[in-house]
């Protein structure tokens, strides 16, 4: 792949993780990406690739630059240097909504909800294939075109809510949800948006312990359905359970890529976690 720098190809790849072996089939390729805020270098020359259908973890201590990388991939932050390739095309110049329409959908570290919209509305607005979402559609198509489709999507959304025992909140304003419920709603909303690549920034943060298993099952199911997932997470036991490969960042750089078990034996990784 032309966009993948030499450093990345030479990166240590402990274990049989698919990272090195499947670079050619990468769905996402981050190559030489750097980003500074004022005088602070948040991300420096970050490169990695994520193959299609994988569930990768992006981990590291606080301030490592994980969220910045997620923002850059999603298009909410621009890059100072480097390229983001998605499905073989450079997407650096695309706005966040254009990337979302190509399939890069994200859930934020701090849950972002539409406060004065109900839970069900928040899910319905995420579906990209629902007609009637533009002025042209509204005034050129008969109402039944979206009404019929909407009914099917309501059923699908309620089934999703049932997984987290949130059916009773369907007609509640999202501003009335607890922090954990907002986080779950955001995850469900991202799933409804028909993603090809799902970017999850600490999806388990604030989620009640009884829902952790349901989230794990949903993520595995989504991945098995062909969606590629890149997630940041501090709970290493969950990362180990879910992620085939982890990309470890520290001080704005990638310091390791491979299996978590092997990674935790690497001196650099241990020092990064201990020293921060």
């Amino acid at each position: 792949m032309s966009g993948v720098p030499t450093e990345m190809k030479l990166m240590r790849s402990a274990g049989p993780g698919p990272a090195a072996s499947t670079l050619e089939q990468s769905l996402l390729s981050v190559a030489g990406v750097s980003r500074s805020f004022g005088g602070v270098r948040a991300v420096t020359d970050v490169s990695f690739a994520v193959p299609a259908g994988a569930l990768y973890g992006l981990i590291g201590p606080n301030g490592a630059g994980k969220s910045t990388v997620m923002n850059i991939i999603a298009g909410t932050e621009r890059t100072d240097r480097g390229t983001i390739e998605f499905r073989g095309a450079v997407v650096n110049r695309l706005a966040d909504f254009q990337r979302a329409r190509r399939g890069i959908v994200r859930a934020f570290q701090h849950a972002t909800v539409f406060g004065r919209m109900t839970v069900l509305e928040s899910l319905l607005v995420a579906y990209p294939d629902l007609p009637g979402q533009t002025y042209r559609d509204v005034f050129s198509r008969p109402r039944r075109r979206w009404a019929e489709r909407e009914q099917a999507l309501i059923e699908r959304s309620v089934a999703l809510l049932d997984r987290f025992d949130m059916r009773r909140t369907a007609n509640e304003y999202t501003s009335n949800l607890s922090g954990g419920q907002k986080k779950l709603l955001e995850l469900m909303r991202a799933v409804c948006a028909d993603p090809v690549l799902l970017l999850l920034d600490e999806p388990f943060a604030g989620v009640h312990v009884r829902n952790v298993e349901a989230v794990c099952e949903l993520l595995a199911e989504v991945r098995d359905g062909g969606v590629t997932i890149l997630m940041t997470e501090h709970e290493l036991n969950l990362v180990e359970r879910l992620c085939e490969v982890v990309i470890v960042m520290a001080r704005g750089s990638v310091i390791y890529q491979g299996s978590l078990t092997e990674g935790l034996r690497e001196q650099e990784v241990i020092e990064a976690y201990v020293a921060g």
Partner: protein
Amino acid sequence: MSSGLSIYIATLFVYAGVSIIACWGLDLQYGSTGIPNFAYIIFQAIGAYVAAMLTLGPAKHGSVITYQQYLFGARLPYPLPILLATFAGAALSVVVGPFLLRRLREDYLAIAMLVLSLIATVVTEADVGLVNGTTGIFNVPEPFGSLSPATQSWIYVGTVAIGVLICAAVVRRIVHSPLDRVLRSVRENEVAASSLGKNVRGAKLATFIAGNTMAAFSGALLIEFIGAWAPSGWEYAETFVYFSAVIIGGRGRRGGVAVGAVILGVGISEAVRYLPTFGDPSLVGAVQFMFIGALIIAFLWWRPEGILPERKRVFRLPDEAPLVEVESA
């Protein structure tokens, strides 16, 4: 009923209808989408001026209007001036919208809109050749001039009522569509809406155009009835009257906004007329704005959701079939 009283009542109906149309347009922008369009009044003014110029005829050749100056003119049959004036409001929105809505946060956008409104007033007053300066355009012939004044007025009430019904149908179509959710998601959280693939800027621009088209329509309807339009009638403060109507009536709730439009657009301005005379006569206008200011503070303090709060969209869930959106909870 005397002819004078009949005309007065008809005039109140026209004012109410025009105010409702204008407030619905603003509510689409501010209530549904969160666009703080403090330049809203200039789009109403564009509609009024264009309708006047297309009714009066060319400025240099008319026998009645030789003492008025304006850019162009034509004598088009009714209701063509209203339709073309409405189109002019949409066209101006297409031109200025992309610049105003470009990457400006809500507070800065509000400032930019306010500045645009001030610039428009100053330029209009300073350049007399544009639309007759501070004097404004007047003697615009009424569309049903051959009839008696009272009959004219009531026929015009019917015209405005048709306009209100058309706008109500347009607004209702939007409110009961998935587009309404998209607009409200933009209002609630632009970043999150964008992350779901919603073209936030595109949605805001389209709503900006739609709302301003209604503003221009309302302006055109008004000048065809009152026959005159001057900058003193569309200063930036008038925008705040419409904003007050939206907030007091119930942002995002069309019925509430209509109530607010009638109270603010007609009720208060008429009520202050009956105040006993005191001090300088110009105080009446000041009292009107003081009262509106006090009212909006009171509502923001005690009832920020307005007289009729925004309707909560409640759906029956699958085991409670049929699966249809039901009315307010």
